């Protein structure tokens, strides 16, 4: 179970998160939605310990993990921007992360799935954006961790890879994992999300299922529901 308690974060004068409380207990796909600059990535990074909040606690399995690092053994993370050291080759990077984690992995299977065998011995600096994102996905999914965090996973991917990604996420969900995804793509949310968390101006405005959010805003589709939510709160 993941629980964020009264998380507050500001950069200088800019308040990014304003007392966020969030509990993710069940297995399934939890998506964080929100306009640009609403604090989605910051929230995820606080969960991972990459950003340090001014206030609040991150609790995983009833243990406060702020400032700790061992808990990240249970987390797989896909960062938003896929950029790596230019001079390493793809296979070297993958092997390095495997060596760091010292856990069983399924990199071979994922390399096949995303068809990056031809690039394994190329330097990361020479790869296209989409191929980098595929490498990024291999790194994120290769350990069988209980918690998976994906920050804008579909960025730069071709449609075939997106289909594979969705299949992969479905399989992981069936294994009973907690999957946390931020995205801008509504169709992805409608298709995949078990729970939607709507973040605006550093606060959670809505938490519930796709049906609930539509019912509450009398909308036919999710896009419309989100737009209504935004209008109501900006007015």
């Amino acid at each position, binding site marked *: 179970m993941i629980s964020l308690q009264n998380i507050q974060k500001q950069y200088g004068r800019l308040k990014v998160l304003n007392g966020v409380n969030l509990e993710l207990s069940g297995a399934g796909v939890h998506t964080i939605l929100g306009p640009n600059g609403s604090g989605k990535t910051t929230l995820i990074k606080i969960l*991972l310990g*990459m950003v340090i909040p001014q206030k609040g606690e991150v609790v995983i399995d009833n243990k406060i993990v702020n400032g700790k690092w*061992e*808990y990240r053994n249970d987390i797989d993370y896909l960062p938003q921007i896929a950029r790596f050291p230019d001079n390493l080759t793809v296979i070297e990077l993958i092997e390095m*992360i495997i060596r760091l984690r010292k856990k069983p992995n399924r990199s071979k299977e994922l390399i096949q799935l995303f068809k990056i065998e031809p690039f394994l011995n190329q330097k990361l600096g020479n790869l296209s954006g989409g191929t980098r994102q595929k490498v990024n996905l291999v790194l994120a999914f290769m350990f069988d961790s209980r918690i998976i965090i994906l920050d804008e996973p579909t960025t730069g991917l071709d449609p075939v890879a997106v289909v594979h990604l969705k299949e992969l996420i479905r399989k992981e969900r069936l294994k009973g994992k907690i999957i946390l995804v931020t995205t801008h793509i509504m169709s992805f949310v409608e298709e995949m999300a078990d729970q939607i968390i709507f973040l605006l101006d550093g606060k959670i405005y809505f938490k519930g299922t796709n049906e609930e959010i539509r019912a509450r805003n009398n909308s036919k589709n999710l896009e419309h529901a989100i737009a209504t939510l935004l209008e109501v709160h900006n007015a």
Partner: protein
Amino acid sequence: MLNILRYSFFDLMRSRWSYFYFAFYLALGFALLFLNNSLPKAIITLMNLIVVLTPLIGTIFGVMYFYNSREFTELLLAQPIKRSTIFMGQYLGIAGSLSMSLVLGLGIPFLLYGILLSGEIINFMFLLIDGALLTFIFVALAFILSLYNENRIKGFGYAILMWLFFAVIYDGLFLIFLLVFENYPLDKFSLIATMLNPIDLSRILVLLKLDISALLGYTGAVFQQFFGTAMGLFLSTFTLILWCLFPVGIILRICKKKDF
């Protein structure tokens, strides 16, 4: 940490710039030896270059590497690794690979020239150790500046300013101070002022070792007089090591609080 150190090290060792740096020292070593045709003269010329050049290269590489590997650092931060391990690994990787370029680049020509058979081997070793220490110090200082500055242009600017300060401006201020207060006893002041600048300090270290401290004029004479050669050597080496450890401590402190 060894893992990160290894990868940072190999990442740098494979970049064009490391080769360039290595080739530069190689060429410099050969050129000096064959132009001077004398080991002690070559070593003294090298010393003058190394005390200015290694800090410059350490500073530039440190800043460049830090900013270029930002995304990679983020990738590592999401792994189950302690923050201090990540930064120490990267730091030692850069400083280590730069020091290796220095040691190999200069070592090869001097070995071929027959340094092992001459009496200058100890002095030469000192020169290399001094260059390596300066590399470690200035890479650490560059890391601190880059940790403080999100903006890489700013970080780069400050880093170059820092180098300029220690390599040039500091000495100028020092001289002005000595001139203005020439009627007062300045022995202690100049001693302390020298210790506060790693470049000056390593210059003195090498001069003391080469036993030509008279060349340095006032400060060298003060060092010689106060400590004698052996004590001066020990003290300046010790202070240089402190100069390494102190910035590393600051890096560890900043990296604990920093957001990525």
